[in-house]
């Protein structure tokens, strides 16, 4: 990076379009496309006894109805486990359309295609499904108790047991001057991009080629998934992410069933087909994040310095593990943040519940870890009668401790090593900026005004993304021209804003124009 990229406003190229209503989001594409709508499970756990589509058949404008029975080849097989892990010993994924048993509310059972969305929903509403309800498992406590199982062949509901430690934590706790233990819960969060998911597909029968638009964060991999599932060669499938109205992690999961079913319908019907997720569908069927129960034990000395930390995380991964165990690994490996923890042990039990799948979302497991660490700091401060900031300051990794090798393995399989930093300097700066010594006086003033303040400290650490969003290739077309395709599609990350300045001059790449 050059200093020219800092301290100067960079005009985003896309803004000129977006402020005049000339954006091109998923639903702005394919005006003449047929529309798909889905019949989804109203139950968290239930067996499909019968699907009666007869009442829907008389709807004017109906074009096709698909159930699991209509799927063949790879489409009839379970969805892939995107990121396998040796400790994910009981990975389970659903089907593109429910086969026999729905494992969460919102799981797609029937796809209806019609001339427009109004008609498609008319037909969908007339399809009668007979269900046999099954016992449900909701929440990590119920999953742990395992009175009922989400998947019959995983009777303890445990998808993965992840374990990392940097020493003998039990001995270190026993040797500590003081210890405290507590349990805390973190609730679920819905992803909620402003624009929901959506897929548009056009099949060119002459060329046997498929062109798909998806509101996704992972167009490259969606392409591979579609090719594999629909038995097409990769070069016959093109996937484009148009303007994306927010990713929020829910759009990095793939392939969503709709990303496979909509192209399948376009091929079968020989016509463009589009599905745009409405907000109700997003509420009931799209991915969540966060839910955990954390059992924390910490040892510390008289000065509040941590000597040992032991964390047991019960992580709710929902009904399926399409995205592997990235989220709880992030919790386990980034929990300690900028603090020097001499002996650390993290154990994660990632469990099934009859809820929508849990995927990365804004922090992807790290906020849960930060919450565990910061609540630990607050409790130590309370126990020792110390200022909350002072306890944190005493526990920070010091400048002469870099590189700081945790002895942990990060989610990318590589050792977790902090190369450099000045954490005490950062905290000093922040303390002055927020006037921490004067915070109690300001809180009292606020209370007089009827305003309730709850000042809190949060010192967090995270591995940043690779700028400017995982550029994989620089293609030098000519001496004065280069094109650097962003690996992840643009969404709320201002990729295009960065593009004019990338690759940086320091790369030595002769560039003038990029697009």
């Amino acid at each position, binding site marked *: 990076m050059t200093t020219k990229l800092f301290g100067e406003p960079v005009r985003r190229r896309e803004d000129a379009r977006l402020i005049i209503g000339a954006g091109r989001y998923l639903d702005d594409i394919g005006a003449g496309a047929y529309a798909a709508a889905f019949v989804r499970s109203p139950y968290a756990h239930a067996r499909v006894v019968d699907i009666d589509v007869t009442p829907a058949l008389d709807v004017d404008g109906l074009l096709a109805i698909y159930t699991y029975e209509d799927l063949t080849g790879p489409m009839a097989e379970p969805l892939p486990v995107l990121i396998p892990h040796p400790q994910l010993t009981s990975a389970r994924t659903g089907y593109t359309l429910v086969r026999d048993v729905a494992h969460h509310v919102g799981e797609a059972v029937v796809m209806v295609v019609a001339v427009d969305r109004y008609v498609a929903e008319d037909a969908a509403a007339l399809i009668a499904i007979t269900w046999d309800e099954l016992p449900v498992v909701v929440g990590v406590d119920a999953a742990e108790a395992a009175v009922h199982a989400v998947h019959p062949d995983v009777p303890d509901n445990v998808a993965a047991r992840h374990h990392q430690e940097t020493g003998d934590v039990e001995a270190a706790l026993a040797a500590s001057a003081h210890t405290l233990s507590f349990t805390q819960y973190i609730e679920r969060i819905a992803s909620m991009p402003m*624009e929901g998911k959506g897929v548009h597909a056009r099949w060119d029968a002459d060329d046997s080629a498929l062109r798909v638009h998806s509101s996704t964060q992972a167009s490259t991999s969606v392409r591979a998934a579609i090719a594999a599932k629909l038995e097409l060669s990769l070069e016959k499938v093109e996937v484009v992410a148009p303007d994306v109205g927010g990713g929020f992690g829910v759009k990095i999961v793939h392939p969503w069933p709709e990303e496979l079913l909509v192209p399948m319908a376009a091929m079968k019907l020989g016509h463009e087909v589009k599905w745009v997720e409405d907000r109700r569908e997003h509420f009931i069927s799209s991915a969540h994040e966060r839910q955990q129960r954390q059992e924390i034990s910490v040892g510390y000395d008289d000065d509040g310095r941590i000597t040992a930390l032991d964390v047991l995380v019960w992580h709710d991964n929902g009904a399926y593990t399409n995205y592997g165990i990235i989220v709880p690994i992030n919790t386990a490996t980034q929990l300690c943040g900028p603090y020097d923890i001499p002996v650390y042990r993290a154990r994660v039990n990632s469990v099934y519940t009859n809820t929508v799948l849990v995927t990365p979302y804004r922090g992807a497991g790290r906020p849960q870890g930060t919450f565990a660490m910061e609540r630990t700091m607050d409790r130590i401060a309370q126990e020792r009668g110390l200022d909350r900031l002072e306890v944190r300051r005493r526990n920070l990794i010091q400048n002469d401790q870099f590189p700081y090798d945790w002895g942990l393995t990060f989610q990318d399989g590589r050792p977790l090593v902090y190369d450099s930093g000045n954490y005490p300097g950062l905290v000093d700066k922040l303390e002055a900026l927020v006037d921490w010594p004067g915070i109690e006086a300001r809180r009292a003033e606020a209370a007089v005004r009827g305003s309730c303040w709850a000042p809190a400290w949060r010192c967090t650490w995270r591995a940043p993304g690779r700028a400017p969003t995982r550029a994989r290739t620089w293609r030098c077309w000519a001496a004065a021209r280069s094109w650097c395709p962003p690996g992840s599609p643009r969404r709320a990350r201002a990729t295009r804003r960065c593009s004019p300045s990338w690759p940086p001059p320091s790369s030595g790449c002769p560039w003038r124009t990029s697009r």
Partner: protein
Amino acid sequence: MSTTTERTVTVTVNGVPQQVSVPVRRLLSDALRSDLGLTGTHTGCEHGVCGSCTVLVDGEPVRSCLVLAVQVDGASVTTVEGLSRSDHSGGQVLHPIQEAFRECHALQCGFCTPGFLTTIAAGLDARDPAVPITDDEVEELIGGNLCRCTGYANIRKACRHAAEQLRTRAEVATSAPRDGGTTR
């Protein structure tokens, strides 16, 4: 009356008279997007909560996802595409709030932006530009719209920036009345 019964709606959209035949149950948002091809209006929630689909009906902000197309028969509708105007040489002149959004980085993914722009434009155009805008007014202006990217700070900034632009223009117009009183 069946849901598929069609009615002809006569409506002025962005200054252009239009006649469209739509099923009586069609939402205004769908009619604008599908029948008139004005895809700048976005539907984020389809139940009147997020404000993305806000358009102006006879100058007043309304949620186009909560209005049927037949309800705007005889009305004048302004969408985000109609906020800018052409100047004498055919160039595009943006509304000050459009310029301000760009200037203040008040958008990231841009999906909610059209709803903010129409709402704020209506609010700014309806107030006395000579009076400096207050923080409470800004809050009131944007309180009905959701954005998931920005945290709203830069949207507030854009409101104040646009209001300031309008105030300056009003002052210029007052001191030189023959130049006309346009606010754009």
